[in-house]
């Protein structure tokens, strides 16, 4: 390992440290100034709960981002550039797509447009989250929570009981984001020494977690069960039907979401008290 390697590692540690410092001070400031009350459960407990729910996300991210780091290395990015990319973007499809464009030396406009298409689903998620997030959350809290809107973090956040506290989101983020960033770092630095079947097994973590998130509510609510099954079938059709299987996975998610969620909303409108339950 060269000096450059240690230098990059130093930068990585520094950025993670700064990140936690910001989260920490934000926590302290809010505690003293605003004193937002979340009833019976304290902020640190919410943070801990979030951190715990973030563990499977962290494992899954690690496995995926090691692959991303490896690809970055093949594509000629430096260790610092790859980890910076993962830290600032935090999105699998967008980053893999973006990496291809970087290697192809595409125009910046093309990059912007591709990112818009690949990540447009976050617009839906963010809108959905705006109704779930505690309405007392400040603009700064909203801006921090926004960075953590990924498929996985969104999934666990939406299915917590009652309103979502930003501290829960911080908890999930402070566990999941280092998994993603550190995985990229490991991938580009030493990825080729990790055994393949361990990486393969770890990529199951994210899906196992998704199922743990959607199955219990589907067990209790027949409409949700129907929605889940239909979404899987439609998504499966996108894999096997000609033409449809040319569509990128990010866009597929948007199409399936628009179709199934609209139909469900039309035929099974949700009563007020069900929302966020």
């Amino acid at each position, binding site marked *: 390992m060269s000096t450059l390697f240690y230098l990059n590692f130093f930068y990585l540690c520094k950025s993670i440290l700064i990140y936690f410092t910001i989260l920490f001070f934000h926590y302290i400031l809010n505690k003293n100034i605003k004193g937002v009350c979340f009833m019976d459960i304290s902020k640190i407990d919410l943070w801990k709960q979030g951190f715990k729910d973030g563990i499977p996300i962290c494992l899954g991210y690690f496995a995926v981002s090691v692959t991303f780091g490896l690809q970055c290395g093949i594509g000629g990015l430096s260790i610092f550039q790859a980890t910076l990319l993962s830290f600032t973007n935090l999105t699998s499809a967008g980053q893999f797509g973006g990496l291809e464009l970087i290697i192809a030396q595409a125009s910046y406009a093309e990059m912007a447009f591709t990112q818009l298409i690949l990540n447009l689903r976050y617009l839906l998620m*963010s809108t959905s989250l705006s109704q779930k997030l505690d309405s007392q959350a400040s603009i700064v809290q909203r*801006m921090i929570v926004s960075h953590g809107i990924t498929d996985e973090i969104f*999934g666990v956040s939406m299915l917590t009981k009652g309103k979502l506290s930003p501290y829960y989101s911080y908890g999930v983020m402070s566990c999941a984001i280092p998994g993603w960033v550190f995985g990229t770092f490991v991938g580009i630095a030493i990825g080729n020494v990790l055994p393949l079947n361990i990486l393969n097994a770890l990529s199951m*973590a994210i*899906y196992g977690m998704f199922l743990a998130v959607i199955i219990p509510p589907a067990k209790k609510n027949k409409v*949700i069960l129907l929605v889940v099954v239909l979404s899987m079938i439609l998504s499966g059709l996108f894999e096997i039907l000609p033409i449809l299987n040319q569509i990128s996975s990010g866009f597929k998610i948007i199409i399936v979401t628009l179709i199934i969620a609209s139909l469900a909303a039309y035929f099974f409108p949700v009563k007020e008290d069900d929302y966020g339950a």
Partner: protein
Amino acid sequence: MEHNIYIYILVMALITYLIRALPLTLIHREINNQFFRSFLFYIPYVTLAAMVFPAILFSTGNVISATVGFVIAIILSYREKSLTTVAIAACIGVYITSLFIH
């Protein structure tokens, strides 16, 4: 002209962040339209289900080990085990299966 990697990263990060932050920071009020509220309510279930299947089958590089993980995850989440338990058990299932296949 040679493109700068840092500008690429900046463009990617900026676009992705704006998509994430705009609705969450701008929409403060509750949306009252019942259709739209219901639509938003169903989004996570649809999105997560569509992301799981069929992608889960190809996630481990082997359909058999992936199916084992899939079944373990369904059974344990049906029994309402925690996220971490389900995820780790599914991973272990995949790993053990992969030892027999290769």
